């Protein structure tokens, strides 16, 4: 049962952008790198970049592949039908390599939560992550959180693709009370259940088409707009291939 979704984007603190010289949102990779360079000069890390939790890396890879190649190439790659030694994949890693000098060092020893705290503390200027990064902010600080779509990598694909996984619930095959579990699932599938949860964690967007969005925070509204306006939406890794990954 799908429950909520969240776009991946470049998150930052508005007050930090206002305090420094960082006013313009970068639209292209060159503009993005120029901004990273200015932040580095100012003593900021562009991105906290955690890798202890592998999913974060994967979603970045998805974002990069969908921005540098056609989304259907990404889906075929995830389905095992394209070669990882292809020029398209090498280009993705090469783009990523070009951004690594701006990252906070020691990424392999950091969880995403630890990395998010670096953004909260304004030690890092930007963080490419899902909207759930807001979970690490206090209510007061969360109002200072904003994002922009990952900049254009290839002019052919512009900013058409957005990575926006859906989280949800499943019933175990070994459930002891299957009937009860299904009743719970029926409830979880309602707009009321989704909105009740989102009230306690206003960082994601309800999946139900009838969920009332009038109570959303400005950030939630922008998340919904970003995904709603995307020409292609990727889920996460091979979730778009209709096959369960054994590599995960």
């Amino acid at each position, binding site marked *: 049962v799908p429950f909520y979704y969240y776009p991946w984007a470049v998150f930052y603190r508005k007050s930090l952008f206002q305090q420094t010289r960082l006013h313009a949102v970068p639209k292209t990779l060159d503009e993005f790198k120029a901004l990273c360079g200015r932040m580095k000069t100012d003593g900021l890390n562009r991105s906290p970049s955690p890798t202890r939790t*592998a999913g974060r890396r994967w979603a970045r890879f998805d974002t990069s592949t969908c921005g540098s190649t056609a989304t259907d190439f990404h889906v075929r790659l995830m389905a*095992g039908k394209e070669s*990882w030694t292809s020029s398209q994949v090498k280009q993705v890693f090469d783009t990523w*390599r070009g951004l*690594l000098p701006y990252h906070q060092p020691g990424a*392999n020893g950091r969880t995403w939560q630890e990395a998010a705290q670096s953004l909260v503390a304004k030690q890092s200027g930007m963080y490419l992550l899902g909207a759930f990064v807001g979970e690490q902010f206090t209510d007061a600080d969360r109002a200072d959180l904003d994002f922009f779509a990952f900049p254009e990598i290839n002019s052919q694909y512009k900013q058409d693709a957005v990575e926006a996984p859906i989280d949800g619930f499943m019933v175990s095959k070994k459930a002891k009370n299957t009937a009860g579990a299904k009743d719970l699932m029926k409830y979880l599938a309602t707009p009321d259940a989704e909105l009740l949860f989102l009230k306690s964690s206003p960082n994601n967007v309800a999946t139900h088409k009838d969920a009332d969005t009038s109570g959303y925070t400005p950030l939630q509204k922008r998340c919904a707009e970003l995904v709603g306006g995307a020409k292609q939406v990727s889920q996460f890794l091979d979730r778009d291939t209709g096959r369960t990954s054994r*590599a995960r």
Partner: protein
Amino acid sequence: MIPSLQSFINNPNDIDGLVKSIEDQKKTIFTS
């Protein structure tokens, strides 16, 4: 795959070796 990405972070300069090792692993997954 996870070690591949971690090794890339530590040494991003061997992309050819990196994608070859991922491709080798992929073949073991998709042909089994």
